[in-house]
């Protein structure tokens, strides 16, 4: 509980974020399984407070990169810094406080199957904070409603939820500790268009009001257009291009062109 106890009068850097502040950086990251190299010399920077959309073909390693950043998949080379710390060399205390300050939404939800939705959301609070059960209950309900789940979902088990509800419940858990950085792995896949739009506006809202930084792997062109400040394209084992949606629309690299200006992309207008 180092973070809660060592309170000093220092100014908090999050209070006045200025443009160009890097919250996450990856340099020369190489990841491979066996003889297959998935990512090679990949560089990436995520700025504080932005919503970064990450696109790339299926099986190109988007999820692998996310897992590598999170420290779940070992990398062969390169350096990854989150909040300015290298996770591999950081002390245990720093690691713990970094893990407290990020939230992760896994592709399949990864809710704890033997806990109810509410217990799932309260899990990080129980672990890191010592709050009264009543307050935890209120906060869990708040988070639950923020992501658009009805209150009666609170006492359900994950196996009793639909795919979209699992996504939302999982987002609620990721947001339980009001993280500064959230990783979302295909958050809107499997949601109906209304739900997906609500999801987008929630993310945009949180990003605007709380300065949340979002790293979002997605294929949803609507999310990319509406809420992403920047978009990174993964291909050829590295980041092919990174920039705003307008820049992507003008990019003439064949894959990017067919992604953003392909048949399906144009049909949506």
């Amino acid at each position, binding site marked *: 509980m*180092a*973070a*809660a106890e*060592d*309170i*000093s*009068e*220092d*100014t*908090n*850097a*999050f*209070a006045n974020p200025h443009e160009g502040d890097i919250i996450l950086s990856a340099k020369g990251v190489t990841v491979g399984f066996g003889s297959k190299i998935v990512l090679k010399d990949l560089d990436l920077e995520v700025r504080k407070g932005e919503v970064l959309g990450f696109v790339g073909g299926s099986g190109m390693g988007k999820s692998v990169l996310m897992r590598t950043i999170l420290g779940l998949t070992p990398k062969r080379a390169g350096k990854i810094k989150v*909040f*300015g*710390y290298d996770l591999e060399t950081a002390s245990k205390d*720093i690691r713990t*406080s*970094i893990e*407290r*300050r990020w939230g992760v939404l896994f592709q399949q939800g990864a809710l*704890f*199957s*033997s806990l109810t939705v509410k217990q799932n959301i309260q899990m990080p609070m129980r672990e890191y*904070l*010592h*709050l*009264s*059960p*009543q*307050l935890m*209950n*209120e*906060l869990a*309900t*708040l*988070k639950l*409603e*923020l992501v658009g789940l009805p*209150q009666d979902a609170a006492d359900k*088990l*994950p*196996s*009793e939820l639909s795919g979209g509800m699992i996504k939302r419940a999982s987002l609620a858990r990721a*947001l339980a*500790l*009001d993280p*500064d950085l959230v990783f979302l792995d295909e958050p809107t896949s499997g949601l109906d268009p209304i739900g997906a739009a609500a999801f987008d506006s929630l993310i945009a*809202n*949180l990003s*605007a*009001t*709380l300065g949340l930084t979002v790293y979002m792997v997605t294929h949803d062109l609507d999310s990319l257009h509406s809420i992403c400040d920047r978009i990174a394209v993964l291909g050829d084992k590295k980041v092919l291009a990174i920039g705003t949606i307008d820049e992507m629309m003008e990019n003439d690299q064949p894959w990017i062109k067919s992604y953003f200006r392909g048949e399906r992309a144009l049909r949506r207008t």
Partner: protein
Amino acid sequence: MAFQQNNTAPALHLDETTYKHQIIALSGDWTVSTLERIEKLVAALKVGKDRMTCIDISGIKNLDTSGAWMVHRLRGTLEFGGRRVELSGMDENRHRLFCELERHHPPRWKPDRNKYSIVRFLELVGRQMEQIWQDAAAMLHIMGSLGVVLATVLLQPKRLRGISVAVQFDRTCIGAVPIVALMSFLIGAIISQQGGFYLRQFGADIFVVDLAGILVLREIGVILTAIMVAGRSGSAFTAEIGAMKMREEIDALHVMGFSITEVLVLPRILALMIALPILTFISDMSALFGSGLVVWVYLDIPPAAFLTQLHAAITLETLMVGLVKAPFMALIVGLIACVEGLKVAGSSESLGRHTTISVVKAIFLVIVVDGVFAIFFASIGI
């Protein structure tokens, strides 16, 4: 980077100097990492009634949803106490945040209480009884469908999944040989040593061979093997089928028109029913080998004498009594494992629970069935 350890302490200042008016000025960080302090501060706050109350949040440096919720909650509590409250010092972002919060009302807090009462106990007993009844029905159901599938397979041998049976046989039988042999060897040795120790006092050393031979062949060999198989393969069946159930693979088989019994249950049970007699035979031989070795070293009865005495003590029937029980034990272990596997619900906890139940039930029933067989064989005089 300053994301940790330099939060400003949250503070709360009550200004009651103005007549009929009071200001609660909040300052510092109202975020999730200072939430514990905030909760204590708010709980310790005592505010006079009958006054216009103003909560000033302009002094707050950092605010997140948890902190905002605490402010919102404070306001709610004050208003509930009959005061007029207003929030001041909002900027646009915070205004949006509070607007969002105002739309949510958590349900009334009801602490969980566990009451132990007679009614609850009776309810539990009733549920258990119901459960036992349903278990029996499920077993009968699987057994019935197994019978049907077996009949179809006999009529159309092509529908027997030979490769599947072979794979399961490899896992349940070949893989179990070393451990079954080792365990039986040790048990045979222990029986002989203990038997020899007591029988020597009466000069009846040689009857250790009879003791070990009959005990191992009739009872110990098959029971130990069945227990080992229940722990080894029964739990594996339950876990495999349970995990398939959790991931909707069973449902996928259903909708594709496959029979679960034919695809999953029959190959496993068939393989187990072939495997268990073989394992029992291996176990018997290995136990007798261990027994012979101990008898030779400990009681100075040479192998030749051991074999002669064994030949006199046991008949082929003695061996068969043990082996005949094996397929039935296999059926029980396999059936229970598959039934429990199919009962797994969505959570990993239920997977663990059913695997445990499967092994415990199988071992229990193996021993019960062994007792039934003992009565049966005694009554027909074998």
